[in-house]
């Protein structure tokens, strides 16, 4: 028992040395989605607070992101998030892709699949109120074809 604990402790220290590159881009100008549409102010803040950590090129890393295995899990989410939808790369999307994404976002928000519950659990301010959801969905519907 004691040996196992020591082993786990040592492993815990070793994995701390794995620190992959962070999702941070130096140029922090507004581009992509936020630039293309004159979004109402609260839509902007909703996106930044509840979506951008995984769906943009800039994640706001919390203090515990310096520890493994938390960091590993985080990076997996960020990678998957960006692959599926990256608001900063919006201008590279074809019109067809933009429309597809808009529909997908509406459905995800409606069904409360996004933001992810695990994210909401830690980031209480990211939880979308009914009002937030309505604002966001109404805006998205206004830019959809």
């Amino acid at each position, binding site marked *: 028992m004691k040996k196992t604990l020591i082993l786990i402790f040592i492993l815990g220290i070793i994995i701390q040395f794995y620190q992959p590159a962070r999702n941070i881009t130096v140029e922090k100008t507004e581009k992509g989605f936020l630039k293309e549409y004159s979004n109402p102010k609260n839509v902007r803040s909703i996106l930044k607070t509840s979506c951008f950590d995984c769906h943009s090129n800039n994640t706001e890393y919390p203090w515990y992101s310096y520890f493994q295995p938390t960091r590993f899990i985080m990076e997996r989410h960020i990678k998957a998030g960006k692959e599926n939808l990256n608001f900063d790369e919006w201008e590279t999307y074809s019109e067809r892709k933009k429309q*597809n994404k808009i529909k997908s976002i509406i459905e995800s928000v409606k069904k409360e699949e996004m933001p992810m519950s695990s994210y909401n659990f830690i980031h209480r301010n990211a939880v979308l109120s009914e009002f937030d959801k309505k604002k966001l969905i109404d805006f998205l519907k206004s830019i959809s074809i």
Partner: protein
Amino acid sequence: MKKTITFAIISSLFVACNSKSDSHDGHNHEADTVKGEVTKAIQQMDSTHAEHNKTLAENDAPAVKTNYDEILNDYFNLKNALVKDESKAAADAGSVILTTLKKFDNAKSNKEIAEIFESINENAEHIKDNNGKIDHQREHFAMISKDMIDLIAIAGTSKKLYQDFCPMFNDNKGAPWLSEIKEIKNPFYGSEMITCGSVKKVY
């Protein structure tokens, strides 16, 4: 054979032409000229053949006028699975679409088709990855149907098709789909509302 005929024609032409103007230099000069001209002609024929073959290759390979019926067939399998409320079969059909798409690599040459392919690919992936979540699969089926309709609009089809419309899906905005049969069998609601919809266009 072709080259022999060309040689004969061209050499006869040059013999005829030269005999009018350069008669004193005679046969040798003519022969050299003819040889030079024929060599050049053969080289030109070769390059024309090469270009012709290249064009043939481009036309044989999937281009704008290509037959995308194979993707259509996979799409119908997907549609029919959703009609029967079979999420697993729909997921499998999505997987098949992904494989079929890879066969059409040359689609990248046409921007519009490339964008449609990108969309079909993404939507098929979502459908494949959501076995058990038929609502989600149906959302992406709506998007993939639009892609297929647009693809057929560009590339045409040899099949008899019907474009159907479901007025209720997507918050009553409605959604179109393609069918190989005239009878309405709704893939968006399946058994819940199987006859809901109408034929909007016959191809």
